[in-house]
Structures are given as C-alpha cells and as structure tokens.
C-alpha cells in the first residue's frame, strides 16, 4: 500500500505515458462530438431556413440528410466514448487498484448486489433504480470484502395541481462497502449520523426515516463519537461488543478522513459501510484534460480510503473465536 508521495511518483513514471495515449483518444472523442453537434446544427438551421422561406419541399432532403448523418456521427461518438472509457478503466483505474493493493479483483461493469445493499438495512426506502460500477472484491489478511460505486434512487409520485408527476429521489450515491466482520454476532446494530447535527442540514426527515424501528438507542461512553453518531441496536450488550472503545475511535478517525456522513450497519456478522460521494468516481473525463495529477488524485484518495478500511478499522485482528 503506497502513500500519496509514492502515488505521485507512480503517476509520473507509470501512468503518464498511458494517460498521454488516452489523451489522444479523448481528443478524438471530443472531435467526434464537435462534428456531430456541428452537422446537427447545420441540419437544424437549414431546416428552419427552408421552413421560414417557404422554399420547395424537396429541399428538406438537405436537413434530413444532415440530421441522419449527425445521428450516425452520434452513434460513432458513443462508440468512441465507450471505448475510451473502458480503456481508461483498464489502463488507469485497474493499475491504481493494483498499486494500492495487488491481488484484488476489479470489474468496471459490476457492482455490489442489491441483495447485499438491502441486507445492510441502512437504507429502508424502496429502491426503484439501482445502478453502479467499479466493483472491487478481494481478501486482505483474513478479511473478505467487496465494494463498488452505487447509485440507488426512489421514484416519488406527487400531485401538482391535480396532475400526477414523478421525480427521482436519491437514496444513496457513493461508495458502498461490505466486509466480513471479525466477531460473531446475531443482532443488528446501526451507526448513523447524529440527528441533531443533521437537523440544521435539512435532512432531518431523511434521518428520522433511517432511525424508525431500528431497536433501542445505545448510549455510548465516547463523547466525540456520540456527537457524530447515533447508535441503534436490538441488543445493548452486543452493540458494545461490536463497538469496542478502540473501534469507536477508529470509526471517528475514518469519518474525519472520509470527510463524509458515513453510515454503518452490523448485520449477520458482516459490516456494511456507506460513504456518500456526490461526484462520479473512476470515470474518464471528456471535456477537460485527463492527464493532470489532481484529477486522478481524488480517485486515488477514494480508492485508497475504501481499500484501507480493513486496516483502518482493524478488521484483520482475529483473536476471537471467529477466524
């Protein structure tokens, strides 16, 4: 596992040559997009001019041909974009993963299954759209884990002046992490962002929804932890068995490092961790240069953060009966 300084040197030595090649591809994609838009615009302007000048109907062939050609160009653009995106993931993201921790399986098309997402019981709103990519699976030490980028949404129906309308509401967008926990337990324990902290943030209702029916409130002795999180569990002792003083400290540190309102659940001897991230991660850029270090640094940061969870939360310590 490398530090950021090691990543910088890795970037300069290993990634830059590939990034330069990808930059050529990106320019081609962009060029194709410009051509598509230009032809589409020409077709549109031609059509509008013919219509406004009341010219002969036969002349509509010109804009029609232009628009058909623009559509062909658009299809080509999409193909180029997909190839570029795939190349980026294979040549760059895969290598960042290998750099952080060799031996992990990376699949750019897969994601954490909806079954695991539901099992976590962190989010209880009905999921109507569930997409994700960049799945990483593996074992570090004795701990099996998987994580990916996820975007789960709920379709909300509402009535505006008697008219039925729909809108998509985000349930979760970010990195969803699942790992085998180092202790056996039977109950369910939830570590959620503190209500009071979120009250002013306007997501009070959302947090309320998160906490209803989650068992008893567990008051823990770590004051900074209690300020940041609210803990619910169906077993007071088991919650404390899971959340040892050392783990509480580690979760707090991890939250600071992630700089996000992380949510955790401990169900069926597994740990589920959701890190909300608003940006799209591990995607190739099209409209700006993709060769800059700063651009890859945020991907590295999130990837490093997720892969290091095992170490950060010390899940490899297997001194209990669960090996």
């Amino acid at each position, binding site marked *: 596992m490398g530090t950021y300084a090691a990543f910088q040197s890795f970037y300069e030595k290993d990634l830059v040559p590939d990034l330069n090649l990808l930059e050529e591809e990106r320019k081609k994609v962009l060029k194709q997009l410009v051509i598509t838009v230009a032809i589409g615009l020409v077709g549109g302007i031609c059509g509008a001019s013919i219509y406004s000048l009341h010219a002969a109907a036969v002349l509509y062939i010109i804009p029609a041909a232009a628009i058909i050609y623009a559509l062909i160009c658009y299809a080509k653009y999409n193909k180029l974009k997909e190839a570029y995106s795939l190349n980026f993931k294979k040549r760059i993201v895969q290598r960042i993963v290998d750099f952080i921790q060799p031996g992990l399986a990376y699949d750019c098309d897969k994601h954490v299954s909806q079954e695991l997402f539901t099992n976590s019981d962190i989010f209880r709103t009905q999921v109507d759209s569930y997409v994700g990519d960049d799945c990483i699976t593996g074992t570090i030490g004795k701990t099996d884990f998987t994580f990916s980028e996820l975007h789960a949404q709920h379709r909300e129906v509402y009535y505006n002046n008697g008219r039925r309308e729909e809108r998509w509401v985000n349930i979760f967008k970010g990195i969803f992490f699942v790992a085998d926990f180092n202790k*056996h337990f039977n109950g369910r324990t939830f570590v959620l962002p503190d209500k009071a902290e979120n009250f002013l943030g306007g997501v009070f209702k959302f947090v309320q929804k998160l906490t209803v029916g989650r068992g008893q409130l*567990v008051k823990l*002795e770590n004051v900074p932890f209690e300020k940041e999180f609210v803990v619910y569990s169906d077993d007071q*002792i088991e919650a404390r068995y899971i959340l040892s003083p*050392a783990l509480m400290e580690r979760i707090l540190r991890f939250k600071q490092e992630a700089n996000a309102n992380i949510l955790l659940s401990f169900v069926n001897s597994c740990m589920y961790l959701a890190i909300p991230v608003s940006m799209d991660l591990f995607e190739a850029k099209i409209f700006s240069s993709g060769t800059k270090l700063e651009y890859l640094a945020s991907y590295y940061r999130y990837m490093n953060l997720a892969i290091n969870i095992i170490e950060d939360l*010390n899940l490899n310590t297997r*001194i209990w009966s*669960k090996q």
Partner: protein
Amino acid sequence: MYIALGIIALLVIMFIFMNNSLVIRKNAVNNAFSSIDVMLQKRYDLIPNLVQTVKAYSKYEQETLTKITELRTAAMSPSATMDEKIKTENELQKSMGKLMVAVENYPDLKANQNYLQLQGSWNELEEQLSASRRAFNAAINDYNNAVETFPTNIIANMKHYQTKGFFEVPEDKKQMPVMNL
C-alpha cells in the same frame, strides 16, 4: 372543582410515569448485572478446559493453575456476595493474565489447535464481559440520573432508592498492556 380534579389526575399520571420510569431503569440495571453474571459463568466454564490443556504441556505452571482452579471454585460459590465475586474475579483476572504470559514460553502449546481455540473463546468472553460491563455502567448512569434529578428524585426518596456504584475496572487491569482491538 373540575380544575382541582384535573390537577389531581395530572399529578397521578405524572406519578405513575415517573414511578414506572424509575422501576424500568432499576430493572435495566439488574438485567445488565445479570448479563455480567452470565458472561462470568461462561468464563468459569471455560477455565477447566484451559487448565487441562495448559497442564498437558507445561509442568512448571502448577502453582498458577492450582490458584486459578481455587479462585474459580470460590467465585462460583453460591454463598459468595457480589462484592466477594468481584474481588475473586479480579484475582482470577490477574492469575489468568500471568498464565497467558507464561504460555509464551511453551511454543508447542501456543501452536496447539485446541489451545488456540480456547484462547479465541477466552478473548471473546473478555470482550463480551467488557461490553456487559459497559452496558451495566450505562444503565447505572441512567438510573443514577433519575434518582438524583428532579422530579424523579422525589419518588426515589419515597421508595428509598439510592444511587448505585459503577463497575470499576481494577487498577492493575487498567495498567495491563492494551491490545489494539
């Protein structure tokens, strides 16, 4: 007349609520305490196996092993009060710590699968015991707050409820090297 009746009804309801909340907290303390007892019992059950396994490999730790067996018997005695139990428990803890350190000198024992399993169970029970202790202290804190704060302290005084002490970890245990769990 109605106002007076209303006030009385309100006071009665308040009394019932406060009384119930006190009883619930008192019961929560008892419940948390009994889980500590359950964990201790589980640990006592594990000791004979652990002693037998260590005995088979080491001939030099007899004194510690005998002491552990004696302490276990004392702790399990039905006539032992809770204070006595806690005292014996702390002694037992000390002897077990000594034994775990001594085991480091016996590589064969350290590699023994049965011993490793027992050690895992022991660590787990330690962690569960620590969790029970923390849950007990949280229940005590809740109870003591109710006994000392207004208006529940009025009922607590009427019922002769008194604050209870926390389950303290012995000083020498605090000083033992802490595993980074």
